[in-house]
């Protein structure tokens, strides 16, 4: 039997455990329970069907198409956002007039409400009064108007651009925090040793920024994967399913096809993918740099 002294620490953490369980674990349990039933509309009841929803899912081309699109979505956003953020962070890490203002206002795209972002870009890309198409035509990039959301690949690429435009300031700030932690004297010593800008970047900046990038990789992947609002508001997963990522498929299945249990099964599968990724990534990050 445990002594009161041994129980005391558990008593202290019990409220937090209970709170987290209620907040995180209970909804997940509910989703798993729902995925094993055949509930159609929200609020209605269903009967147990075992793993039937999962079997249906695994043989559904739509599910695998969406999973593939989600993977491409995460990768393309990660690459574009990292490049944009790295460039911006390196620029903002320099000393120049107005750098403080620039550091403050770079978050502008991130703090604008999503619906405003959507309205702005819809208008900019519109053929009726939008400014992007005339500019592209006048500069000779295109010779006739194009529909940025009219073809699946084009719509997907446009969504990646808009989402990256929205999110890169957040990554920039994280990178900037990482950059400011790199001691200045390392750069001065390298400069004295004759290292050029590229060498200083590859030998000092990049290795010392890598831990920050690793953390951002995990956070960014999870955030990107779960993006729903921008996609839904701009294309609703279209055209022809060309931007139907897993979150969009979950919403469509639950609230457009009225198949709550099938949607729950997709959500559970997506959660498993993300948990597996998070576990692998955090373990990899926890290893010492030389063992990676």
């Amino acid at each position, binding site marked *: 039997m445990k002594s009161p002294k041994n129980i005391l620490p558990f008593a202290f953490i019990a409220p937090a455990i209970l709170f987290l369980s209620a907040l995180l674990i209970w909804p997940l349990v509910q989703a798993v329970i729902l995925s094993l039933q055949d509930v159609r509309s929200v609020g209605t009841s269903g009967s147990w069907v075992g793993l039937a929803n999962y079997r249906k899912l695994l043989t559904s081309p739509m599910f695998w198409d969406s999973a593939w699109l989600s993977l491409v979505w995460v990768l393309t956003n990660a690459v574009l956002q990292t490049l944009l953020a790295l460039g911006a962070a390196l620029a903002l890490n320099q000393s120049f007039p107005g750098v403080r203002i620039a550091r403050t206002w770079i978050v502008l795209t991130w703090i604008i409400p999503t619906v405003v972002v959507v309205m702005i870009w819809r208008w900019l890309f*519109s053929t009726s009064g939008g400014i992007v198409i005339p500019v592209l035509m006048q500069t000779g990039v295109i010779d006739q108007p194009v529909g940025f*959301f009219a073809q699946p690949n084009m719509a997907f690429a446009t969504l990646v651009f808009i989402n990256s435009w929205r999110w890169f300031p957040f990554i920039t700030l994280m990178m900037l925090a990482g950059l400011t932690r790199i001691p200045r004297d390392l750069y001065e010593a390298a400069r004295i040793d004759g290292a050029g800008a590229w060498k200083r970047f590859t030998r000092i900046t990049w290795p010392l920024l890598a831990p920050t990038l690793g953390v951002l990789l995990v956070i960014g992947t999870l955030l990107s994967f779960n993006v729903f609002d921008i996609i839904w508001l701009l294309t*609703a997963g279209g055209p022809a399913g060309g931007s139907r990522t897993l979150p969009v498929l979950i919403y469509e299945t639950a609230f457009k096809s009225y198949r709550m249990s099938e949607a729950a099964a997709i959500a559970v599968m997506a959660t498993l993918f993300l948990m597996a990724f998070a576990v692998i990534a955090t373990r990899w990050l926890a290893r010492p740099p030389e063992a990676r």
Partner: protein
Amino acid sequence: MMTYRKHYLLATIASATLLPFAAAAQTELTLWHMEQPPHRVERVQMLLDEFNASHPEIQVRQEPQNWGEVYAKAPAALAAGIGPDLLFAIPDFTPVLKDMGALSNISDFVAELDEAHDFIPSAVEAYSYDDGVWAVPLYNMSMNLWYRPSVLEAAGIAVPQTWDDWQAAAAALTGDGSYGMGLPANKQLYTDQTVYSVMVNGDAAEIYNADGTLRFDNPQTVEAYRFYNDMLQYSPPDAPSWTWGEAEACFASQACGMIMQFSVISTYETQAGGDADDLGVAPIPSQSGDEHNAIAYANAVMLLSRDEEKTEASKTFVRWLLQPENYGRFLNMEPGLFMPVTADGAEAESFWSDPIVEKYRSQIETVIDNSQNGMLFGFTSGRVFPAIGAISAQNVLAETLQTVAISGVDPAQAVADGQTRMQQLTE
């Protein structure tokens, strides 16, 4: 000074004591509608203020929603117990909530209103099935072809009557930054409406056989999709992401020569100069030119409250709204778009005396004429197929068009796939 303070204190105490009782005596109703444009919200609010002032025992407040989300939001809100007491509907939305058990049969109430105002029969029929009536019809809408007579005259073309005329007119009006025909191809309700408006003019109105089996996959439907896809070449390249607003903006800016829309009067008046003589409206061209049809249906209001007091208050509100002196002003929240579903409403001074309605009277009369041949998928030939709700919620008509127009699938195959998809959704 002290006297004032005492009075103030007494008044405060009295208010604090009595107000809760006053509030308890008042029945509060929440109205969800999908008429989001600010001027419509403003008109609804004006009417609600009048109603609330004349019925102090009832307080109705509006919460505007949008059609894109309400199919998802309403069932979720009702399941969570925070749904509205009154919710606007189109015929294929009602079965979704009825299947949830959220609706009660209000045939007695609709009969009472019919006795008082004389509903257009087709408006009630769309909400009458499974031995009940599930919503009160409020206003009719029908799809029309809108154009500018001066633009057609300048191009030397007449108002198209047949599909061949229509395609030739669209081709003649396309070029130099202009598009002959603004057609949507988005997977959205507007595209369902325009696609079906082409289908009904190509003898493909019936999606169901009389026995309830699907007959979407037929040569007439295939031909309608083929024609629609051909017409898309005369539409702006961003049409696959259009909803109603983009089409109206295209017409108002003169980038589109013709569009299919329920009404453009409001945007034409406010954004396109408002020359009533240069706004044309015509029936949607048909394949043969003999008979013109269009998608048309009555919007309605569903009474959702389970509370007897709230249900009675909801009925009081609907009775008040359908009174001719109020009804016309309600319809004119968007002049030229919402048409009366009652006989006394069609003659109401409050409807015809609106300045915009007076200005565009000839266009509105044409719209009313066009609506006489209106049809709605799943509600044709006097039969009602409630399973259409799931098909409509997933915009399968529009989805099938995207398969043709965007994925490049042959219309025959796309329509066959569309029927399979409909079957899956209604299983």
